[in-house]
C-alpha cells in the first residue's frame, strides 16, 4: 500500500522556509508521498535537496521530487497575470510531488503528464509490516 498525503498551500503558507522543508521532509520520512498544492521557491527547493543530503542514512536514502507548474513557461500577458497571482496568493499554482527514494524509484515528467515508478519489492515489504 502507498499513502499519498495532500498538503494544501495554506498549511505551509505561514511557515518559514526551514519550517516548510521540515514539514515536507518529516512526512516523506514516514514513507508517504507528499502532494503539495503549489510549489516551493527555487531557493527552498535547493535547500530541500541540501537538507535531504544532510539527513541521508541507512534508512533514508533521499527523495524523488517533481513539480508541475503549468503556467511557468507562458509569455506576455499570461506570464504577467501568473506573476501577479503569485505575488498576491503565493506560489500555490501547480503541484509538487515528493516521495521517499526507497519507494519511488523515478518520477518521469513532461509538460503534459507525470509518471511515478514505484519499487514494488519495497511496497510489498512495507505492506507486510
Amino acid at each position: 500500500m502507498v499513502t499519498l498525503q495532500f498538503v494544501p498551500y495554506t498549511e505551509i503558507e505561514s511557515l518559514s522556509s526551514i519550517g516548510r522543508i521540515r514539514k515536507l521532509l518529516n512526512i516523506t520520512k514516514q514513507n508517504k508521498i507528499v502532494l503539495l498544492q503549489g510549489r516551493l521557491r527555487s531557493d527552498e527547493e535547493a535547500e530541500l535537496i541540501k537538507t535531504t543530503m544532510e539527513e541521508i542514512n541507512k534508512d533514508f536514502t533521499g527523495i524523488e521530487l517533481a513539480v508541475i507548474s503549468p503556467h511557468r513557461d507562458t509569455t506576455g500577458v499570461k506570464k504577467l497575470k501568473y506573476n501577479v497571482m503569485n505575488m498576491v496568493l503565493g506560489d500555490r499554482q501547480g503541484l509538487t510531488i515528493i516521495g521517499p527514494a526507497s519507494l519511488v524509484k523515478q518520477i518521469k515528467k513532461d509538460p503534459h503528464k507525470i509518471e511515478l515508478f514505484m519499487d514494488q519489492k519495497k511496497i510489498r515489504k512495507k505492506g507486510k509490516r
Partner: protein
Amino acid sequence: MKVGGGVVFNLLKQFVKKVLGDLFAKKKHVKIGLYGPPNGGKTTLANRICKDWLGEEMGTVSNIAHETREINIKEQISIESKGRQLSFNLVDTPGIATKIDYEDFVKVGMSDTAAKKRAKEATKGVIDAIKWLDEMDIVIVVLDGTKDPYSQVNITIIGNLQARKIPVLIIANKIDLRKASLKKVQSAFPQYSVVGISAKYGKNIEEFYESLFVLAG
C-alpha cells in the same frame, strides 16, 4: 589655478591604470562553474577545456556516478577565439542529486565499506555544490543529452541560477550517442542557449567556446 601638463598626464595615467587595473582584476576573478546532475559529463568537459588550453587534464572520470565528490578549481585558464581572450577560473562541482543510496555502488561491484564511504562523500559533495552557487559568475549546466531533461534537479539548478541572475549556458552533452536529443533539451529550456557537444570526442567544441564568449560579453 594653473595645472601643469605633467600633473594632467599623471592624473590621466593614474585613471587609465585604475580603469585597466579594475578591468583585469575583475577578469582575474571570473569563476565559471560546471553544474548538473551526476554523470552528465562535467569533469569530461572540464578535462576537454583544460586539455585544449592548458595541455593537462583536471580530474578523473568514471561511469560510476559521483566520481567527483569535491569542488575542484583550475585557475587562470585563458581561451582565445577570433582575436578575443577570456580568462577565468574553472570550478568543477559534484553532481547534484536528490538521493544517494550506497547499495547502488555495491551493485556495480564496490565493497560495502567503499560504497558507504563514497555515498557519504557524495552527500557532502552535493551540499558543497549548492553552497558554491553564490560564488559563480557564469554557470555551464552540463546535461546528459541521452537523458530526460525535465528532471527536477535540472529545473531546480537553473531556477536558482535565474533567481541569482547568474548567466547560464546549457550543454547537451554526449551528442555522439544515437539516443541523444539536442531538440529535447532545447524544448525543455527554450529561454536559454543550448549547445550540443561531445565533451569526450570534442565534437562541436568550437561552438561551445563561441557561446562562452557571447555569454561572458
